[in-house]
């Protein structure tokens, strides 16, 4: 078990290294750097000015050095003032040091956001907290309802309940967030006026049912169908097992069999599915936060990508990749833990 864990951690580290190199090279493509320099110099810069800005700010240093200094294995160099020849801070709004220092991700320094003019950590941590709340409520709504639908449908395969619940879950998997968001906004905000079509106030004034129900509903619907279908499939399989029949033949009540014998085994598979659902939720988070103007992680990611904010975008990708890999790990380990027939070797 321990070596399995170590091996997995090694693969995770390698994956993160590869992915950050890919992201790093993509954000440093020439058109992207030019876009950054134009937005940062705030002027109609000529090609020469753009080039000199890029050189002065260290964007033309060798790729390995720049990636190394982002990672923290190569010293971060300050800028050199053209006129005085003195070393000056590279990002004044972040108090970047004026002497070469080892300060990268490995040291816990995620760099400086050129769009928001502050340290990446100062921007990203509140955003992640906001998204954490969104995720929490989405999970709190999605998982119980999905499991309930799946169990009710899978309890008696082929029954009328099963068919109608299956249609409902198929429909929900066919409704991406940007479609259900529009339907719900039209129904609940425009026509009925029960809910707020924007979650912008949730950041400043706190989360209420009025401003938070729509984003949570929108996100929960898309993921719910998939989990429900997996639960149903797993439930159907369990219900045909010998030990369920034995329990029934003993004279145990139908619902007692479900609760005492079937559920325990039927819920192993959905657990994996729920864990693997996190990466999908990440896309949902981005759509929903843009749609309902909620200042969270997805909103930050879009801002970072739209403005080619290199450090912020790298930090965002690191966070999302960590989320994906950690949930994969939890799902594997948890599956082995829950299912005694499978033991990790």
């Amino acid at each position, binding site marked *: 078990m321990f070596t399995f864990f170590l091996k997995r951690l090694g*693969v995770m580290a*390698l*994956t993160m290294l*590869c*992915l950050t190199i890919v*992201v790093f090279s*993509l*954000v440093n*493509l*020439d*058109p*992207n750097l*030019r*876009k950054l320099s134009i937005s940062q110099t705030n002027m109609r810069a000529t090609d020469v000015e753009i080039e000199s800005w890029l050189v002065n700010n260290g964007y033309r240093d060798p790729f390995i050095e720049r990636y190394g200094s982002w990672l923290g294995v190569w010293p971060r160099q300050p800028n050199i003032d053209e006129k005085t020849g003195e070393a000056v801070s590279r990002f004044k709004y972040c108090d970047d040091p004026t002497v070469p220092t080892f300060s990268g991700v490995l040291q816990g320094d995620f760099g400086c956001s050129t769009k928001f003019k502050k340290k990446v950590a100062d921007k990203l941590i509140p955003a992640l907290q906001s998204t954490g709340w969104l995720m929490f409520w989405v999970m709190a709504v999605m998982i119980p309802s999905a499991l309930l639908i799946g169990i009710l449908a899978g309890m008696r395969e082929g029954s009328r309940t099963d068919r109608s619940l*299956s*249609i409902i879950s*198929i*429909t929900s*998997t*066919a*409704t*991406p967030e*940007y*479609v259900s*968001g*529009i*339907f719900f*906004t*039209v129904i609940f*905000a*425009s026509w009925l006026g029960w809910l707020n*079509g924007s979650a912008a106030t949730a950041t400043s004034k706190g989360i209420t049912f009025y401003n938070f129900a729509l984003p949570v509903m929108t996100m929960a619907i898309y993921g719910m169908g998939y989990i429900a279908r997996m639960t149903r499939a797993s439930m159907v399989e369990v219900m045909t097992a010998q030990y369920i029949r034995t329990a029934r033949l003993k004279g145990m009540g139908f619902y007692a069999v479900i609760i005492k014998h079937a559920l325990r085994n039927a819920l192993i598979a959905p657990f994996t599915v729920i864990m693997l659902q996190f*990466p999908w939720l*990440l*896309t949902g988070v*981005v*759509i929903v936060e*843009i*749609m309902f103007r909620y200042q969270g992680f*997805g909103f930050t*990611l*879009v801002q970072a*990508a739209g403005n080619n904010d290199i450090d912020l975008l790298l930090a*965002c*990708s690191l966070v*999302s*990749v960590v989320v*994906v*890999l950690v949930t*994969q790990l939890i799902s594997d380990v948890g599956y082995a833990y829950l299912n005694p027939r499978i033991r990790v070797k």
Partner: protein
Amino acid sequence: MEFLSTFDIITTTLVQLWPTWLALVILVAASFAFQNQLGLYGRLFDSGVGIVGVLIVAFWIFTAIFADIIAPFDPLDQIVVMKNKLPGAIEPGSGEAFLFGGDKLARDVFSRVVYGSQIVLIIAPAATIFALMVGISLGLPAGYYGGKTDTILSFLANLVLAFPVILLFYLLVTPGITETPIPYAMAGLFFLFPIVFFVTLFYSRYKKRAEVLWIQLAITLTLGGWIYAGLVFDADPLGIISIDPNELNIFVAVVFATSPAVFRIVRGLVMDIKTRDYIAAAQTRGETPWYIMLWEILPNARGPLIVDACLRIGYTTILLGTLGYFGLGMAPESPDWGTAIKEGSRLLRLYVHPALFPAAALMSFVLGLNLLADSLREESMKD
């Protein structure tokens, strides 16, 4: 300005779609008449879910084919007086109604939804087919050989899968990237897979029968090379096949994001099938590994792959919509459903209709595909 009543809007819309209804009637009549000879497709008509799935998907296919006849207006035509008009408003110039109203640039929403189906129904299935080709070509050796091949390919697939889709698209489908050779290099790589796939497919079986092999190889290479030249280098000598750089970029990004998932499925299926007796029999006969993979394993994995392809077209449609929703790739005036939803949702609190109809269209198409996949799965499990 005059408006049609709700009842008139519905009837006029139904009348406007007459080519689709006609084609659907012919399809359904033919399907029922020859149901017993049509194999898996025929058996779809045994269940209600299957019929509904086929009907919805066929509805959109026919609508896309007959878009020129169905749509009363040009999807890009701006008729200023019709700006943000509610559904059923009659355009004074032609006397034709804007059945689903006008959007904020005064274009006919109905015609845009109809023309949008063309874009979606070309890109989504085509990208899925390419993703299947890439996934199959890499998944077969990974599952069959195992060992190092498997380790390396699986690591690469997991690498792509660990990338959140949305971030991948933001990095790969930015406007700047079309200035770099990256999309073309990726297209060059991905579009090679179908050619290599078919060449290997024919070679592994007919290598002893040169007269058959040469014809097949010649056809594959000519057709493949023609499409390849048209798509990757935009140098089709006949000028039939060409693709907009933006659309190529989207296409490549979607193939890149979907093929690892196909790879995983194929790999799993191969690992299961290769333990069967008929594979051992083929190995004993001395067949080459690629013959076994392509002519013994692949045909026996087709059931789950067809179901997956169906679901995946739906998923790709959703991905395309996501791209459109974020304004990535597609031109802002493009009538595809995702872009239309984005444009419409900006004014959602004032005017509902510009976003509502494309959203309903997208949802119904994906729902049709999902129902189809579900009933295909049930039917193929009965075997």
